[in-house]
Every structure is written in C-alpha cells, then in structure tokens.
C-alpha cells in the first residue's frame, strides 16, 4: 500500500514536469540578460514547450495548463492580456487536430510543423496587437524574433526529448 502511494506521488510529480518546465521557460524568457538587442527579439521559449508537449505528450499538457502558461507570458511580457493566451491555445488546438500528421514522424517534420504553426501564431499576434493599438507594429523585429525562434527550437526540443526519455518514461 505504502509503496503504491509513493509510486503514485512519484508518477504525479514526474507528470507535472512538462508544465513546470514551460513555466520556467516563461520566466527565463523575460529575465533581463543585458545582451544588446536581445530583449527586442527574444523568442517565445514557452510556445516551443507548448508545441512540443502537444505533439508528444498532450496528456501531460492539458488545455488549462496551456491557458495558464499563455496568461503568465502575457502578464510578464506586458502584452495586452489574453493575446499570447489565445495564440498558445490556438497553437495547441491546431497541433492536436493535426496529430495524425505529426506523431511518429522524424524530428525534421516536427520542426517544420513548428516553423509553420509559429508563423501563423506570430502573424495572428501581429494582427491583434496592431488592431488593438491602432498602429501597424513594425514587422522587422517580429521577423527576427520568429527566425530566432525557429533556430532555437531544435536544441530546446532535444532537451525536451531527453527529458521525455529520462524523466517521463516510467509515466
């Protein structure tokens, strides 16, 4: 009996790690790094986490967790509240609806999926923010942010995959 309780607690704490990892990435993404120009083009690390877990382990990244991550990203980055929340949820929804095409594919296909979906997400965020502020937001910084994001995705996804095989294998 005692053993199973510990087993369950162990499994539960492991199951929580994808969500916690995403929260840590939200925080890491906004810490002042004092690198010239970085803050203007800092990619959305937490979006990568949401995408990755939606592809590989959607059972460990439920929609309300995605909502919370998006909301935290909104609050910390000073965005109009709800914008990233919406983008993250839609990203999650699109990935789940396309799971047939994404599960069991090579890393390259999954990466390509991120390239496409994050482009859509960024474009939507651009439209919403431009609409809200009534001014067309300069798209250049956004383009750099997007390119940096798709460049950073592969190493980060490797980390997630390693996490998956070490920490999440038993659950």
């Amino acid at each position, binding site marked *: 009996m005692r053993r199973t309780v510990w087993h369950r607690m162990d499994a539960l704490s492991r199951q929580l790690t994808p969500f916690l990892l995403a929260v840590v990435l939200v*925080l890491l993404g*906004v810490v002042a*790094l*004092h690198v010239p120009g*970085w*803050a203007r083009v800092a990619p959305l690390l937490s979006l990568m986490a949401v995408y990755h877990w939606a592809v590989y382990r959607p059972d460990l990244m439920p929609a309300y967790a995605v909502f919370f991550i998006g909301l*935290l990203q909104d609050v910390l980055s000073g965005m109009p509240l*709800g914008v990233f929340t919406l983008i993250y*949820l839609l990203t999650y929804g699109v990935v789940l609806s396309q799971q047939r095409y994404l599960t069991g594919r090579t890393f390259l296909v999954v990466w390509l999926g991120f390239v496409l979906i994050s482009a859509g997400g960024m474009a939507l965020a651009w439209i919403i923010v431009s609409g809200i502020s009534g001014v067309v937001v300069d798209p250049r910084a956004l383009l750099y942010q997007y390119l940096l994001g798709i460049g950073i995705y592969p190493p980060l996804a490797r980390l997630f995959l390693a996490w998956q095989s070490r920490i999440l294998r038993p659950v």
Partner: protein
Amino acid sequence: MKETRRTVNRIAQPVKTVAQRFAFMALVLFAVGLIVLGRVDVGTVERARSQILDAVTPILAAMSQPVVTVNNWIAEGRQLLNVHSENARLREERERLTKWQAAARALEAENRILKGLLNFQPGPMVNFISGRVVADTGGAFVHSMVINAGAVVGVAKGQAVATGDGLLGRVASVGERAARVLLITDLNSRIPIVIEQSRVRAIMAGNNTSKPRLIHLPTGGTVSVGDRVVTSGHGGAFPPGLPIGVVSAVNDGTIEVTPFANRDRVEFVRILDFGLDGIIGDLPSAVGRKRRK
C-alpha cells in the same frame, strides 16, 4: 463484466472527447474575453496583472542574479584589457570637465543672483527611488521592463523612470513590490518634449524600434540633427529638463531621436517622484496613494 466495461468505454470515450472540446472552446473564448475586457475595463485587468507580477518578481529577481554576476565578470575582463586606453580617455575627459566645472560654477552664481532679482518660484522637489531591473520583456510587441520596487517604497503610476544617462520610460503599472516600466520606445509612449536650444515643443512618440519619433511639431519650428531633446514638463507627469536623447535623423516628415538611455545596459533605474500625479495618474494609482497615506 468485460462486456459492460466495453460498453461504458464506448459511451464514455466520446463524452470525454466532447467535454474536452467544450473545455478547449471555453478557454479560447475566455482568452478572447480577456482581450476585450482589457480594452473595456482597464482598471480590473491592470490590478490582476500587478498582483501576478508581485508574486513572480521575487523569482525573477533571484533568476536575474546569476546573469548580473556573469555580466559583471565579462565587464571586468573587458576593463582589464582596455585599462590603458581607458585611463588616457578619462584623463582627457577630466581636463575637459574641469573647464566645464568652472563654467558651471560661474553660471550657478549668476543664476542665483538673477533668480533673486526675478523672485523666481522654483518647481517642486524631486525625490528618487531606486530599483533593479529584473525583467526586460516584450519582444517585438511591447517595450517594457519590470523593476523590483513598488507602491511600498512610493512608486506610483505615471512617474518618470531614468538612468544616469537620461529618461528611460514611465511607470505603467504598480504592484506592492514590483512595477512595470513602459519604455520611451514603446508604441504607446507619448512624451511632451522640448528641443533644448530652440525651445521648440513637440511630442515624442515611440514606435517599437530603438528610435522614437517627434510628432506634432508647431508650424515653422525647425529641428536639425544633433539637437538635444529634453522633457518639457507639460502635463505635469515628468519633471522638466530631463535629458532624453539627441535628434539623429531628419527626413521629410520624420524626425528620429536616439535616446541617451541604453536599454540593454541598464541594471538599476531611478524613479523620479515629482510629487504630482500628472495627467497619467488615474484611478488605480490614486487608490494606491491614498492607502499609503
């Protein structure tokens, strides 16, 4: 037994899927609702935002500590490499500044006499509050920072935030122990300015690039490259005469300003408590002020 379980599964599975779909749609609608609410009821959303920010800021402050340490090492290494040329530069600067000091002393004395003659009414005193930058955020959409000083130490919405070099932005929202600073380069930033030499007034508008622009220039007011831009103090939000930047480009219609304050380097900021709420201080900050007093 097995049969019943299969039947249960057959019914439960679609129900579960439908429930999940419904929950997902509800969350999406909630997010859209948040965007709309943020436009309609600014106060509530901002208060919620400040509370979350308050909760997270200690974690951000702890996380930014190692970054600061590493950056200090790098800076120290660089200084060691450049110590000779730096020394020569500083000697030269010291010589130049000594001359300026003499000039400033003479002007100060003259100014004091003239003020006495004119019975000049000095502006309100400015108090400083210092804060550390714990987050530098927003990516392509928002230019803002989070500092670890809030209403507890007297930070209020609308106050000017400056570095040693010049104006950095203004306080956009305040929590108990944290505040968000909207940088002068942000899309939503509008600051009344005056050209230091010609006293031409204008508004400096951010545009999410590193170079904000001057708008609403009076007809006939000329601005040329190299002119220093300072706050005008109009609207009562900022103290007048705070350095902002220098005009770096004048093309037909657009006048670009390069700010003195460097966003990437800034680690500590000064929040200027001017003693006035100005036009920007509205309900949420006014409530915070009353509670403090």
